């Protein structure tokens, strides 16, 4: 039945995209928290933070974008969980379709929803004075990193979506992901942190991803940071995909 994979995925993608356009609140609520953080840090704490760059919103935006994605992917877990609860997941599984298209449709929907949220957050940042002289190519590179990061976290979100027992359980896993940027170079330079915290911050994925995006925005030579960032994204993506697929096969093989 795999010959229908692309067709079935397209049909199911159309279905969950309708869910998004009919409940735009899921996109709004995704963007509220990152925008609130951005307002709080730029207008309240920002004055006391010395980053070495002339505009704090320029410094902050890359981390805010990652927080946006981390809060957006919890809706993938939620939608998948709802499908299982309502029985429509089983209905799809009992039909002559390419079975993995059910998951792919949710993953691609997450990608679309997160890209919309990211555009909204960037627009707000522009209103707050964010400016970048980045070339079109650099913007494409930023988009590429963000897409990789979204895919990686979305496949991670598939796991609780398939296994959760309650709605809260399905979305709670995202909280640590949302707070990971706080212990990174997203808000303050890591050299101000005490030793062990700095060691963690310097070596966790958010710092390298944030640094790479920041370099792209400020037209700095990106150097090794973008490769480390992409390696982190690819690594998380591969592990999360493998775990999600294993969970899925365990779930549908009964």
């Amino acid at each position: 039945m795999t010959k229908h994979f692309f067709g079935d995925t397209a049909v199911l993608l159309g279905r969950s995209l309708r869910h998004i356009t009919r409940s735009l609140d899921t996109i709004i609520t995704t963007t509220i928290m990152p925008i609130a953080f951005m307002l709080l840090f730029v207008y309240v704490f920002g004055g006391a933070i010395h980053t070495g760059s002339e505009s704090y919103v320029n410094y902050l935006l890359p981390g805010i974008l990652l927080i946006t994605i981390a809060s957006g992917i919890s809706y993938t877990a939620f939608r998948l969980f709802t499908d299982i609860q309502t029985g429509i997941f089983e209905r799809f599984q009992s039909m002559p379709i390419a079975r993995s298209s059910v998951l792919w449709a949710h993953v691609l929907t997450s990608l679309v929803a997160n890209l919309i949220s990211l555009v909204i957050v960037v627009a707000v940042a522009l209103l707050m004075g964010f400016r970048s002289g980045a070339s079109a190519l650099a913007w494409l590179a930023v988009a590429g990193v963000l897409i990789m990061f979204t895919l990686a976290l979305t496949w991670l979100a598939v796991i609780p979506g398939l296994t959760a027992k309650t709605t809260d359980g399905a979305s709670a896993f995202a909280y640590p992901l949302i707070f990971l940027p706080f212990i990174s170079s997203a808000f303050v330079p890591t050299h101000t942190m005490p030793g062990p915290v700095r060691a963690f911050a310097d070596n966790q994925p958010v710092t390298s991803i944030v640094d790479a995006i920041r370099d792209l925005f400020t037209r700095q030579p990106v150097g090794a940071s973008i490769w480390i960032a992409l390696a982190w994204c690819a690594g998380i993506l591969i592990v999360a995909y493998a775990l999600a697929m294993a969970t899925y096969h365990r779930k549908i093989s009964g």
Partner: protein
Amino acid sequence: MTTDTAVHVQGLEKSYKKLHVLRGVDFDVARGSIFALLGSNGAGKTTVVNILSTLLKADAGTAGINGFDVATQAAQVRQSISLTGQFAAVDEILTGRENLMLVARLRHLKDAGRIADDLLARFQLTDAAARKVSTYSGGMRRRLDVAMSLIGNPPVIFLDEPTTGLDPQARIEVWKAVRELAGQGATVLLTTQYLEEAEQLADRIAILHGGRIIVNGTLAELKQLLPPAKVEYVEKQPTLEDVFFAIVGDDGEDAAASGDQSVGTNE
């Protein structure tokens, strides 16, 4: 298994951890017939249906649908069946029409819109076609659910407790739909805990108890298991159901549409 057998189940066993739910289930369902699997809650009816619809693997035994083995030819089995689960598995955010079109497209049929419109008309959902399913009543949802199962005319249809939670009118509508299905040559396997439902619909009835089929036969055969009927004279009182239908009318349409009527004004 002969060509007249649509469902063939032999020696089916299934355990969940320590719970031995199915301990060797055997039955056959003749093509074009309605077969009711009767049993109390937790008897394993849903487990049987889930194994037959390839959602669950049996620990032992074999099951064939339309000549295909559920374990080794799952893809062909899925082509031959449709499953209506215990809870109406419909998409709440889509409209009724979109739900039907979704299933038609997933079954790779052409002209999904026309298929949807036909079924909407058949199940008296045309007026609600463009409304989100979240606004539907329980009966409408179940009708849509059953309609979604008919798309592509699968030869074998599983209905797992199709009327649980429905009001009497909606139940009668679902019964009507099930009879229509069988009338068109489909084989229907339904599970139920309502004895009346089995009596009303089924050509054959099997009782699943203690992990095995303990009785399997026509209603007449089952009745012969008990001593012959004794003639007694009993004053016939109207049942509450008779009263209910006399008041609200049993045309099966939504109760809300027929307006209110006070007791005493007979139709």
